[in-house]
């Protein structure tokens, strides 16, 4: 069965005398590498120079607070379920009266940990979150000497209360994204059905 037009028939042909001499091939190869001597190097000298990130680069996560400074996360666990790397763990707790300023929902995450060594920065947690609580940002995860240090708890993940410590995720939180998020389940099911029909029709 032919899947693409890219397949090539392998022919084991004898090399001609010139080819068997190797020297012309060697010289052309050396000419090619010599040309690279004068090309611009692609290196980015990292600590001094940094690569320009795309606007929606997926780096270290942030747990957002709402406008009043209450944590948005309700410890529903959807992100942990969505995570393909099983990097997220959390324990839920009930909000006590008087803690309304701290937590937006009645249930909140008492602990919330992401193992940055397991995380593949796919952004599925962000997709899954119904509360717009978790976002990936364009910050890089630091390097450490021990594995333990890579398990980021709430102290690192939750953004600061003060306005200057808030993490701006507006590029990721556009109207379209929010709208899409609302519709996602619906739209996803629809395409899924369409595909199903197609495959059925194809048979």
């Amino acid at each position, binding site marked *: 069965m032919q899947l693409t037009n890219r397949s090539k028939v392998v022919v084991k042909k004898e090399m001609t005398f010139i080819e068997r001499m190797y020297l012309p091939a060697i010289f052309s*190869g050396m000419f090619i590498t010599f040309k690279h*001597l004068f090309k*611009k190097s692609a290196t980015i000298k990292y600590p001094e120079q940094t690569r320009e990130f795309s606007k929606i680069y997926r780096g270290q996560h942030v747990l957002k607070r709402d406008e009043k400074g209450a944590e948005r996360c309700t410890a529903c666990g959807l992100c942990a379920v969505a995570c393909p790397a099983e990097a997220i763990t959390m324990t839920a707790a009930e909000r006590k009266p008087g803690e309304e300023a701290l937590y937006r929902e009645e249930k909140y995450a008492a602990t919330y940990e992401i193992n940055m060594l397991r995380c593949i920065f796919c952004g599925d947690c962000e997709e899954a979150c119904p509360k717009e609580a978790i976002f990936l940002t364009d910050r890089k995860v630091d390097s450490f000497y021990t594995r333990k240090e890579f398990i980021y708890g709430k102290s690192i993940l939750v953004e600061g209360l003060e306005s200057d410590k808030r993490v701006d995720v507006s590029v990721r939180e556009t109207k379209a994204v929010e709208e899409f998020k609302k519709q996602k389940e619906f739209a996803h099911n629809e395409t899924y059905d369409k595909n199903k029909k197609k495959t059925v029709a194809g048979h």
Partner: protein
Amino acid sequence: MTLDFLIYKIILVLIVFSITLLVATYSTYAERKIAAFLQDRIGPDRAGPFGILQPLADAVKMFMKEEIIPNVSNKALFVLGPGICMLTACMTGVIIPWGKSINIGGTDYPLQIADVNIGILYLFGVLSLGVYGIMIGGWASNNKYSLLGAIRASSQMISYEVAMGISIIALVMTTGTLSTGEIAAQQHGWHWNVLIQPLGCLIFIICAFAETNRAPFDLPECETELVGGYHTEYSSMKLGLFLFAEYINMFISSAVIATFYFGGYNMPLIGRWVHDPNVLAILGFVFLFMKIVGFIFFFMWVRWTLPRFRYDQLMNLGWKILIPLSILNLVLTGAWMMRHEIINYFVK
């Protein structure tokens, strides 16, 4: 032999030795830089300006690393291996004519440590001793990869030494001498041997690559198949000596190629402008060095261009192509030298 002479020789030995080490040290740096440039990278640039102190950092690293001698190895031979490699690598430098003699106060001081009249034989003897270091090291490690690397090294050495030797015989026929000093002196002006012996030169260069275990002939240490080849079990400075010996060999090979085929310390046309023999001698040294640096660059350039040979290809190339070619070269050279006699024979 006066005391003067002895002191002069000792000084010369020390200078050549330190230059060899210095060049080998900076070859490691140059190798990494050239590899980087050929691959559109920058290479080491953190230690000092342009990474110029990188070899020092490497050396410090090598010395600080833990010294591991495998329990199952033959300890004495294990230590001896890299030592022999290093020793033989350094020994070949003595017969290279680094320049014409310098005249100080009426006495001639030749810039060659030992102008023995069998220089080429000495060179070959020492070169083939070099593989003993690899073999002893590889065998003493008591590791199959090391042993395989050592076997490959020795069989490669034997195969390519034959072709190299025959191509050199042709050179000896045309020059009529086994002394390296004389070969260099004969190539004044444009009388470079590469123009007389182009095929022999090509064979010699290819064999030099094989003898120094450089890519594309680096099968004894090919990482993809043999872990590290003969130096798999080595660590710390003993590994460093093995790697270092390779660079020294490369330097010496470049010097030998330059001396045998590319005019040694001679440079065409320079005699027109410079007449003072001392200045000429020093300039000759500079020219030889330029040639050597050029060849070292060539060695590295080839390494970062060509893929490694397969083992059967290596043997085929050695036995079925290079040796017949070098014999052909020998016959052609002989025929050319006897052309008058041959023509006379047929014309009469």
